[in-house]
């Protein structure tokens, strides 16, 4: 009983090895994304005209709202340990990826790819790596969802917290990427 009560309280990053491990991993991932973002910024001027002509800021903004909203649903899911909110998070994440796939298809059809010019190289690398991270997050969410279906409250609170932290990180990276890549065309 007491163990179950202790488990229900949300674990602290400073005391829980799993959460601390995830936080350190995220810190390390941040350096990785920082390097890719810096490369994008370094080459921004060379690709700015192509970016302005081909990126649909409004459309991507709408899909971005889905991803940003998924952080909210993830927070609800983690605090209530709710499978329904988790499902909502996964749907929002999938909507975002669908939007990204549609944009890729459009750009590729217009002849803009990773090999076409500097804009394509930097754009597809940065957004592609982020997309892969979203995909990895969806896999983690699906695993948590399955575990929750199978074992319910026996799934430790820390699993919810850990997956949540990673998902918020993927979301936060998109705030930066969306600002630099898309909002950057408005400047």
């Amino acid at each position: 009983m007491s163990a179950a009560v202790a488990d229900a309280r949300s674990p602290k990053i400073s005391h829980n090895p799993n959460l601390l491990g995830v936080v350190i991993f995220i810190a390390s991932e941040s350096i990785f994304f920082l390097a890719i973002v810096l490369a994008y910024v370094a080459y921004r001027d060379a690709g700015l005209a192509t970016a302005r002509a081909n990126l649909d800021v409004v459309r991507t903004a709408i899909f971005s709202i889905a991803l940003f909203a998924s952080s909210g649903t993830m927070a609800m899911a983690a605090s209530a340990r709710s499978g329904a909110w988790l499902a909502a998070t996964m749907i929002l994440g999938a909507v975002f990826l669908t939007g990204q796939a549609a944009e890729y298809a459009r750009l590729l059809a217009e002849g803009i790819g990773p090999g076409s010019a500097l804009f394509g190289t930097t754009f597809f690398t940065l957004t592609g790596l982020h997309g892969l991270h979203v995909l990895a997050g969806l896999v983690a969410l699906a695993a948590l969802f399955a575990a929750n279906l199978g074992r319910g409250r026996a799934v430790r609170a820390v699993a919810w917290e850990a997956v949540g932290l990673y998902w918020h990180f993927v979301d936060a990276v998109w705030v930066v990427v969306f600002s630099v890549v898309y909002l950057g065309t408005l400047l």
Partner: protein
Amino acid sequence: MTAVPLWVRRPAGERVGWLRTVDHKEIGVLYIGMGVAFFALGGVEALLLRAQLASPEASLVDPETFNQAFTVHGVTMILLAVVPLLVGFANYMVPLMIGAPDVAFPRLNALSFWLSLVGGIVLYFSFLAGGAPDTGWFSYAPLAERAFAPGTGVDYYILGLAVNGAGTIIGAINLAVTILLMRCPGMAISRVPLFVWMTLVTSVLILGAYPALTAALVMLFVDRQLGGHFFDPTGGGQAVLWQHLFWFFGHPEVYIMVLPAMGMISEVIPVFSRKPIFGYAFVAASSVAIAFLSFGVWAHHMFAVGLGDTENAIFSATSMLIAIPTGVKIFNWIATMIGGRLRMTSAMLFAVGFIAMFVIGGLSGVALAVVPIDLAVTDSYFVVAHLHYVLFGGTMLGIFAGAYYWFPKMTGRLLNEGLGRWHFWLTFAGFNLTFLPQHWLGAAGMPRRVFTYAASTGWGPLNLISTIGAAILAIAMVVFFVNLLRSLRSGEIAGDDPWDGFTLEWSTTSPPPPENFASIPAVTGRRPLWDRKHPEARDKP
């Protein structure tokens, strides 16, 4: 001859086998085994290079083989030998030193090791798949682009390093969490042994530096496989971006390789001086300072690129600053020895050798931080001499010190001291004979990475001396391997605490049981075992 269980003292019938072990001690041994194997491979490659350079205008190997050999030698020694050796000792020793039953994530620990190993195997597979990478260990663009390196060597370099790096990053997360959260009661962070401190700082360096390498590798991959233009000047990209990203990883990597070795000698020197370390807090804090500074010095590898005088001046200054915390440590070790009752065991000989050789490497490093000097000797054998004084004279001697010190804990048997002395003095002579003349060769203008040189340059005699030194160094390594194998089978039984040690790893059996300690220890000072053995002379809490 008493049978001694090697590596872990398991009850009969409970061995799990190397492939599926998740015990930090066995994974540590796997890492060390990997490091030793790749050290031997990298050593053979080095001997090939030295044999080719022994005389002018030689043609023992063709230029292409030579390029592959120096490239793979560098990558091997740095990423597949030294890092696994250091991570291996950290894996084995850190939980023991902080009184923990294992690392924080034992299964993740196994994943780290296997990723690291597979990365190394992928790199070496390139030899069978049409040729190894031949673009140097830092694989500068645009040379590494498809237009100039059309084979698959660089692709194996990308894949191998990325996989190996993932393993190293995961390992660093594990060690950091272990040190932060798994310490036994009383083991405040201000009391952990200095090797643990260095491992923590090194983990932070890995977590900050390796992702930059991974990012650079991804970009190179996009360039080579998807036709990208990150480092392709003809497509508007800039080759210098690779250099920035690579050295943002590459320079912290030097400290990733040096700090744990400094940690090893910070354990060895006090124990064999019968004194606590002089200025514990300074040794720990100066490492943090080194780690901090190491992220701000990368462009000293790029003075000759033409970044501009202001940039060069800034990076010159930060590079020189690093000499201060490093110098602090040198004085700490010397002050520890002063007034101590020294026992010049093989471990201690290597530790003292580290100090002497590392000081030479450090001084040539400060010289290279001076922009005009760097411009004069950049890409010459002077740089080769410098980096080997740091990484062999420093790191490898430190690792040997750690090996003689901890081998009895890991195996229950002592390494032979007589062979240890032969190993040390042959290494010392061979090392200096190999690399000291390279300072003069570099100053005389001999470029690094040249396949051969004209007899009229006059570089022949010093190169011959260098090659003779390399042969002596090879003999020293053979002596060490003979010592390892002989001592594993029939070395003197060590007992739990052969050196009258200070720290917790010596309080358990040699080798330790799977759970490390019969009961979780509680400590009140920096030398918990010393306090227990000598209650009358215990350290003040």
